[in-house]
C-alpha cells in the first residue's frame, strides 16, 4: 500500500516533467512543438519500411520518393514563421552546397505556408534546394509519420539509399557538423 501511495504521489504531484509538458505549461503561443536537437540514429537492421511519398514543389513540379531512390535524401520540415527554422536555414543550405554534387538530395517540406511565402523565405536565405508545399493536403507529413516521426518543428530526417529513415534530428540543428556526420554515415553505407 505504501508503494502504491508513493507511486500515486509521484503521479499526482507531477514530479515527472518532460519538455513536451513544459512547453504546454509555458503557454508562449508560439504555435508549434519545439525540439531540443535530439539526434536519433537507427541501425540498418532496425529501420522501418521505405517511405513512399509524392508532393508538390514550390515550382509546381511534383517530387516523389522514386526521384531519390538510390541516393541519400535529407528531408527538412519547416515553415517561414518558425524561429528555429530560420536560424538553421543557413546551415542546411551550406550542407546542400557541400553534398549537392555527391548525389545527396535535399527536400524541404513546408508544413504551414503558401507557395509565395515559402519562396520569399528561400530568397531571404538563398536556399537553392526545393521545398514541397504541404499545408493544404499534409501528404508528406502523413507519409513520414510513424515510428520515427517528425515530432517537432523543425525536424530533419536522413533517408538512406533504400528510402528508409535512418536518422532524425528533432528541433534546430545545433551544429552543422552533426548533420554533416549523419549524411556522411548514410553515404558510406553500402547500397546492398
Amino acid at each position, binding site marked *: 500500500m505504501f508503494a502504491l501511495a508513493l507511486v500515486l504521489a509521484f503521479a499526482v504531484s507531477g514530479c515527472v516533467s518532460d519538455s*513536451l509538458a513544459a512547453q504546454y505549461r*509555458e503557454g508562449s503561443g508560439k504555435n508549434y512543438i519545439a525540439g531540443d536537437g535530439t539526434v536519433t540514429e537507427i541501425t540498418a537492421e532496425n529501420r522501418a519500411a521505405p517511405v513512399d511519398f509524392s508532393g508538390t514543389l514550390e515550382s509546381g513540379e511534383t517530387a516523389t520518393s522514386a526521384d531519390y531512390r538510390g541516393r541519400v535524401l535529407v528531408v527538412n520540415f519547416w515553415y517561414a514563421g518558425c524561429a528555429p527554422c530560420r536560424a538553421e536555414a543557413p546551415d542546411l543550405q551550406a550542407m546542400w552546397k557541400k553534398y549537392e554534387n555527391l548525389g545527396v538530395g535535399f527536400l524541404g517540406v513546408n*508544413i504551414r505556408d503558401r507557395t509565395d511565402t515559402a519562396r520569399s523565405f528561400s530568397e531571404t536565405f538563398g536556399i537553392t534546394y526545393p521545398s514541397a508545399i504541404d499545408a493544404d493536403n499534409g501528404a508528406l507529413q*502523413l507519409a513520414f509519420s*510513424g515510428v520515427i516521426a517528425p515530432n*517537432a518543428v523543425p525536424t530533419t530526417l536522413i533517408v538512406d539509399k533504400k528510402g528508409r529513415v535512418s536518422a532524425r534530428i528533432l528541433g534546430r540543428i545545433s551544429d552543422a557538423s552533426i548533420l554533416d556526420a549523419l549524411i556522411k554515415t548514410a553515404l558510406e553505407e553500402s547500397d546492398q
Partner: protein
Amino acid sequence: MNDRVGPTVSRPYDHHDSRVAASGDRITEPPLDFIGWLRWFWRQLTSMRTALLLLLLLAMAAVPGSLVPQRTADPNGVTQYFADNPDLASALDKVQAFDVYSSVWFSAIYLLLFVSLIGCVIPRTRHHLRALRAKPPKTPARLGRLAGFTTRDAPAGTDAAAAIDSARSLLRFGGYRVALFESGSEVSISAERGFLRESGNLLFHLALIGILIVGGFGSGFGFSGQRVLVEGQTFVNTLLAYDSFKPGRFFDEERLDPYTLALDSFDVEYETLNLKAYGQPVDYTAGVTVAVQGKTARTDEVKVNAPLRVAGTDVFLLGNGYAPTITVRDPKGNIAFTDSVPFLPQDANLTSLGVVKVPDGLAQQLGLTGFFYPTQAKAQSGAYFSSFPDLEYPMLTLNVYAGGLGLDAGVPASVYALNTDKMTQLTGGDTGTKSLELKPGQTQELPNGLGTVTFENADSGATDGDFSGSVLRFASFDVNNDPAQGWVLLFSVLALLGLLTSLFVPRRRIWVKAIRRENGSVCLEYAGLARGDDPALEAAVFTLAKRHNAVLAPTPPSTQTTEPI
C-alpha cells in the same frame, strides 16, 4: 422498538454478534508508545468521519482551480494573468495556485482520502466475507420482545418439526439463509437476509477507489493537442502539426496514430428572426475530410459537443473565427507573403484581433496588427466596432510596423503578439498616418514605399456588395485521447449500482418457533429484527405468518390471536 439490539451507527450493517468484551470496573487508558500512536493515527484516518471531512476538504481545495487560470488547462490564461497582475500572480504561484490539481496540498488531501478509503474498505470486506459464511444466530429465547411478534395456534394435528420445515422452505424461497435449532419442546428456525446491502455498499466504495485510480493513472496515458485550421487546410496527427500539445504523464510519442483531417468548410448559422437574440450563433458545423493511413478518406462533421471519433481520438470543436487572407507585395509586385491569418475574436460580434508577420521578401521585416470587423459600424466617438457576427460589411484595419520581428535568432515568439521593441510604427497611433483600411478585394500602399498590402476576397466570383463568402473562417480543434474514459464509465456505473443496492435491499432477521404444548397442540411464534432502517419488517413478519398458516391448513383456522407490538 429494538433499542437494545439495534446496531450502532459506527458498525457495519452486517456486524455479526461479537463476543461481549470482558467487563472491567473502569476504563483504563494505556500509555501510547510509538506503535500505539501510529495505530491511533491509522484509526482516525480510516474512520468514516475523517473520510467525509477529507471529501469536503477536497471539494473546497478544488475551488481555487476555478478562480484563477490553470497551467494544465489554460496556459495562455496564466501568462496573461502574470502580465495583468504581476505581484499577485507571483504570490499565487508560490502557493501553487496555478497548478491546483497537482499542488502539494491538493495531492495531500487526495492521497489521504485514498488511503482512508482503502483502510476503511479492506477490513469491511474481510468482515463481510466472514459474515457471509457465518450461520444465522441462535433463536432468542423470548421472541415476544422483538418486532412484529405474532403467535398462532397451529392447526390440530400439526407436527412441530413439519411446521418448521414448511416455514424453512417459505423463508428459503424468500431469499433467506436459514438455520434450524432445537431445544427441548421447541423447534425453531433462524433466518437472515439482505447481505447484498453490504455487498452493494462495498461495491460502491471499491468502485470509488477504482474511479480515483483510473482518474489518476489512466488519464496519464492520454493526451490532448490543439490546432487551428483555416478552411482548406489539412492537419496531420503528428506532433509536427500541433499548435500546442498536452501529454499525459506516461505519454509515448509513438501512440499518435497518423491520420489527416482537412477542414473543408465551416458553417455558422446566426439567429436573425428573434430580435432579442439577434446575431446569436445557433449552430456551428465544421465539414471535414478524414483519412486514416491506408484507408479511404471519408467526409464527416464536427459540431460543438458532437466530437468526431477517429483512430482512437476524439476531435472536439473548440472555437472559431475569421482568417482574412492578406497578401503583401514588394514594390515590384512580387508576392512577399500571402496567407489566411486567424484573427482572434474579441466580442460576440466577432470584432477580431490579429497579427501578421511578414519576415521575408521586403526591404525590412514587417509586422501588421489589426482589427477585423465582419460588419463594420462606427460609434459616435469615431471608433469602429462590429455590429453583427456575419459578413455583411467586412472591414480590416491594419497598423504597420517595420523593423526586426525577432524571429531570426531562433527564439520562439507568440504568433498572436507582436514584439515592437525593435520596430518602428508606420501607421496608426501617434504616427500621424492613418491606419490602413481595407475591404475585401482592396489593395493599399504601404508607407515608405515598402510595397502594397491586399485584403484578398476569398470568393472572387461574388457580385458587388455580396461579402458573404469574402473571408475564410478558421476552426480550432482539440484532439483528445483518454484511454481511461471507458473505465471511468464502468466504475461509475458500478458505484451507482452498488449505491442503489445498499439503499434498497433491506437487511433483516426473522425467527419462527414451534412450541409443543403438553396437550399435543403446537403454538407457532413469529418475530423479526431489523438491521438498519426497515419500515416493512412488521408487515413482512405478518405476511410470513399468514402464508405459513395457509400452507399448514388450507382452510383458515377458527381461533387465532394476534398481538401486534
